[in-house]
């Protein structure tokens, strides 16, 4: 991992006497490589390295007996700092049915996450209504219905456009006292103008308390592109990062948090509906460092 590589770098540099700022450049190269190998976006890496450099050329590293370990400590602390050292809870309106909208690229885990969030909210004493707003993917509604049934959660299925389904679901929720509405939308590309406009229309009609982008933890450099567009068009309130039960380093987490400033609120850690955890920046930082 990074600690071992830095130990080698400093072992070699130490042989030439006192450490200098010049030497740190070499160490930062290793940090850059580690972050790129973790799939952090290269522009985000640039900015992040600058933050690390300022501390790395300070006395805490240059005068340390274990400079390699110090650099790792600095990187870890800066990562946690960016990823979000404070927990951001789910927003919620008490009086009328709140909406929680899930958006994102194809196959990222929105439908599964919708059901997981339903289960989570149920355990917090809420009475969510799952809304099958994906009217395009074959058997998308059936998928949400099966998941909802397994949890004993109601699922609203409607006819018409996604927007119409969402609007209808609000009336149903009001009537039956469901809160919040969890809107499962179709996967779409951030560069698909009409589909992004569809989401804007749903947002305007439903005024969601939460608009969460569901993103795959194994996303590479492209993570910033989709996150920026979804955030620009909708004003995200946060992210859910899925499939963290694999071995992807998850650098996309740093990328999307860094470029949008929006918090990662939950992580998906499996296919079962109990596989949802609140985001822990310290665990994510260790994981990215490998």
């Amino acid at each position, binding site marked *: 991992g990074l600690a071992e590589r830095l130990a080698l770098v400093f072992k070699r540099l130490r042989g030439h006497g006192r450490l200098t700022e010049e030497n740190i450049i070499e160490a930062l190269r290793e940090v850059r*490589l580690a972050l790129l190998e973790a799939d952090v976006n*290269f522009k985000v890496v640039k900015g992040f390295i600058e933050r690390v450099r300022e501390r790395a050329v300070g006395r805490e590293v240059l005068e340390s007996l274990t400079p390699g370990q110090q650099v790792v400590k600095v990187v870890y602390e800066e990562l946690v700092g960016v990823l979000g050292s404070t927990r951001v809870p789910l927003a919620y309106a008490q009086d009328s049915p709140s909406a929680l909208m899930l958006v994102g690229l194809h196959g990222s885990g929105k439908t599964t996450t919708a059901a997981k969030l339903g289960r989570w909210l149920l355990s917090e004493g809420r009475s969510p209504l799952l809304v099958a707003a994906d009217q395009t*993917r074959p058997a998308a509604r059936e*998928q949400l219905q099966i998941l909802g049934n397994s949890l004993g959660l109601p699922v609203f299925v409607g006819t018409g456009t996604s927007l119409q389904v969402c609007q209808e679901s609000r009336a149903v929720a009001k009537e039956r006292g469901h809160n919040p509405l969890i809107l499962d939308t179709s996967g779409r*590309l951030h560069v698909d103008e009409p589909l992004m406009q569809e989401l804007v229309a749903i947002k305007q009609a439903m005024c969601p308390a939460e608009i969460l982008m569901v993103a795959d933890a*194994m996303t590479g450099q492209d993570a910033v*592109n989709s996150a920026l567009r979804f955030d620009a068009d909708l004003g995200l309130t946060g992210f859910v990062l899925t499939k963290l039960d694999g071995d992807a380093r998850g650098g996309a987490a740093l990328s999307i948090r860094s470029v949008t400033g929006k918090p990662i609120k939950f992580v998906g850690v499996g296919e079962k509906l109990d596989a949802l955890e609140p985001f822990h920046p310290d665990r994510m930082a260790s994981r990215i460092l490998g």
Partner: protein
Amino acid sequence: LFAANAGSAPTLEALEELLIAADLGPIVAGQIIAALHQRLGRRDLKELRHVEETVKEEILSVLKATTPPPLSADPDARPRVFLFLGVNGSGKTTTIGKFAKRLIDEGGKVIVAGADTFRAAAIEQLQVWGKRVGAHVVCHQAGADPSAVVFDALQAAVARQATHLLIDTAGRLHTKRNLMEELKKIHRVISRQMPGAPYERFMVLDATSGLNALAQAREFHDAVGLTGLVLTKLDGTAKGGIVVAIAQHLKVPIAFVGLGEGLDDLQPFSPEAFTDALFV
């Protein structure tokens, strides 16, 4: 000489960043830049156009080192079996629908096997595709043993004299031992039932994937011996450059690219088109 020096450093850095941005990864990007130094003299590095062409040649030489397997009906009239596998949400089920359409348009008789018996509505999703394209779907109930579905589908393909059998499997992370064992069992069932018959193992990979895709490809290749790759969602902004690393290390050819959610959004892989797109 000064001009050559001034021009080359920023050019090479920008080029390396372009390759990294395309998900080739820092190691492969670094290797390509190093090879550039080898192949071009100092003067040539100034010419950005020349540099770009040389990099494209490097990438093309990796991508063209392998050729995709044959896809048309087997001359000995055995069903050509395709096993589709990959991590969750990569586009396996949709790719099968598109591929079935392509084969049927070319006069094939296609059977599809619903061997994802785990995920909610996976079978229903495949059945919609089967109906759309006119392919017979072999499936059991949800929760059934995937190997049993595969066994039945193989028998049906032979009995019905199908030209192609496309097998859909559940998404699985390569780190899950039990799921990889399940996949190996499916592979054994096919190998045993159809010894010597044409049999392809295609990993379906999302173009937005980062370097973890290489680890995925390694695991799946170790498990079943991949004979091809399908790179999906290339209609987005991701470049899918990780396939260069996969081609380099594992020598698995890329058979198709997915360019959308519709029936016709599957194209044979073109190394040239792919490489040109990296620089757009």
